[in-house]
């Protein structure tokens, strides 16, 4: 459990943020320059805050009121940097064992073989960092941080320097890390797709302040105030496969909002997954439409109507307690005379697989 509350100036920039991060992955999400990286540097001890307090698992790492500042090497806070920062003069194996060396014996929880297996880096052990691909380097960097048995793991845009193929290669490992490592992860990112896929909790940063914080599905479903490009906004739903394949290449998945049919999932019955329904892929109908091609429809209630943006307007529907966003035109809003509290049907054109 991480508890942060700091107030810090860096040049003209004023960082004033407080948040807590518990089990799972907490995404620090926001534009470049919103203070995300400074915040994790403060947690790691690489930046000394002017004022504030940081606690990890009940131990105070920083408390400016008591003039307390624990040196970085005594914090046992893991850090995966954007550029990997592997030691070029050591082999992969030596890099991985580096942190373990400095960890007090009784606290060496992380098992070498387990971490190697988790990250799939067994074949790289005798190589030097210079000969690794970007994706391999980042997996080794994650392993190196984990093997120091940290109490929390900070990841500063670990995928930002990689191309899409390499990103896709690493994302499943980070998902496994979130579910299996058993330590809180603070994950800095400005990429919506990563946050949608990975985050348990989202802390949205804006201009050095926390603009919103809460469970991922809740924060991502808020209307307005989202620093998202239009078209990226959408609801996140947790789902489970009910029927694997129906002969049409479609899987049936169950969500709290209702069942959905999605193409080409390739997952077994019972598998858990996360899907995203982009607001622009949702149409609103007053009554369930007849004879339409769309496979997925969810009944719901209009919970909120956002501020109009240009010709469009965003709606938040409450579908059995789950938020679903819809983007319609102002004209449609008026023609259908939609009001908060009314029952409608969300007609969903496409559902995106967002992660395991």
């Amino acid at each position, binding site marked *: 459990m991480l508890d942060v509350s700091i107030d810090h100036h860096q040049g003209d920039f004023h960082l004033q943020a407080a948040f807590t991060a518990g089990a799972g992955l907490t995404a620090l999400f926001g534009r470049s320059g919103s203070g995300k990286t400074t915040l994790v540097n403060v947690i*790691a*001890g*690489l930046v000394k805050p002017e004022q504030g307090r940081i606690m990890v698992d009940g131990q105070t790492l920083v408390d400016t009121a008591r003039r307390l500042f624990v*040196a*970085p*090497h*005594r*914090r*046992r*806070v*893991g*850090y995966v*940097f954007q*550029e*990997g*920062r*592997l*030691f*070029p*003069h050591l082999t992969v194996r030596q890099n991985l064992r*580096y*942190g373990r*060396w*400095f*960890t007090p014996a009784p606290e060496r929880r992380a098992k070498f073989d387990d971490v190697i297996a988790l990250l799939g880096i067994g074949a790289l052990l005798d190589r*030097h*960092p*210079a000969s690794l691909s970007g994706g391999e380097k980042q997996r080794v960097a994650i392993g*190196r*941080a984990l093997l*120091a048995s940290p109490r929390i793991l900070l990841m500063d845009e670990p995928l930002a320097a990689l191309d899409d193929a390499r990103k896709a290669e690493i994302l499943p490992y980070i998902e496994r890390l979130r579910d299996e490592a058993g330590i809180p992860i603070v994950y800095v990112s400005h990429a919506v797709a990563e946050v949608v896929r990975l985050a348990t909790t989202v802390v949205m940063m804006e201009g050095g302040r926390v603009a919103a914080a809460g469970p991922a599905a809740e924060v991502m479903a808020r209307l307005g105030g989202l620093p998202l490009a239009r078209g990226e906004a959408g609801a996140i739903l947790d789902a489970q496969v009910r029927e694997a394949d129906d002969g049409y290449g479609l899987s049936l998945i169950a969500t709290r909002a209702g069942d959905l049919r999605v193409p080409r999932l390739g997952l077994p019955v019972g598998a858990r997954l996360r899907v995203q329904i982009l607001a622009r892929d949702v149409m609103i109908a007053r009554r369930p439409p007849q004879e339409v091609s769309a496979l997925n429809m969810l009944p719901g209630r209009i919970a909120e109507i956002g501020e109009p943006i240009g010709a469009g307007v965003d709606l938040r529907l409450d579908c059995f307690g789950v938020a679903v966003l819809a983007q319609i035109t102002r004209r449609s809003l008026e023609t259908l005379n939609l009001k908060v509290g009314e029952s409608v049907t969300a007609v969903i054109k496409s559902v995106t697989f967002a992660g395991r």
Partner: protein
Amino acid sequence: MTQWLTPEEWQVVGLSLRVALWATLASLPVGLAVAWLLARKRFWGHALLNGVVHLPLIMPPVVTGYLLLILFGRRGFFGELLAEIGIVFAFRWTGAALACAVMGFPLMVRAMRLSIEAVDRRLEAAAGTLGANPVMVFLTVTLPLILPGVLAGAILGFAKAMGEFGATITFVSNIPGETRTLPTAIYTYLNVPGGDAGAIRLTLISVALSLAALLVSEGLARRAARHVGGV
């Protein structure tokens, strides 16, 4: 080969190697510390220290030798102090080593400083987050990364020591068997009639030793560079 050089000449070669080796080994830790200070720390007197370190490179060697004589001679301030604990430089081979060390110091510090400045400090920060205290960060990350520069500095210092003439002859004179190194021996040969053959022999030795030092340093640097690799 033993026939080829006279016993006195063998003595000169042995003494030169001993002087240069001691000059290099003794100034290595000091040089590394000074290079570290100049590269990493900003303090009052930074420019002054930098200037003092580089002085022997700029001043005439005879001036450096004379200053050493004033400070470390029998009546010199440090000379008298050190004599009490049994360390004497004046007209001893140790004095020759001191003169060579001082003359080679700027070259050594320069090479080391450049390599320290080239170290990616983000790697040191990463080592810190993995639990290494500052001393361990230096020993396990910084030192291995600057090793090529440290070696290059040491070899430069050694080469300078092998060839040092002006400061040495001014400070500790040219005493056979005590302070007569290769350059002063060649100089002596050239001042006696019929000494040409001896001068040529010692010159060839000098060339061979310099070349060997160069090859060794190239080899070490290449090995170290391969080890360090790219990021």
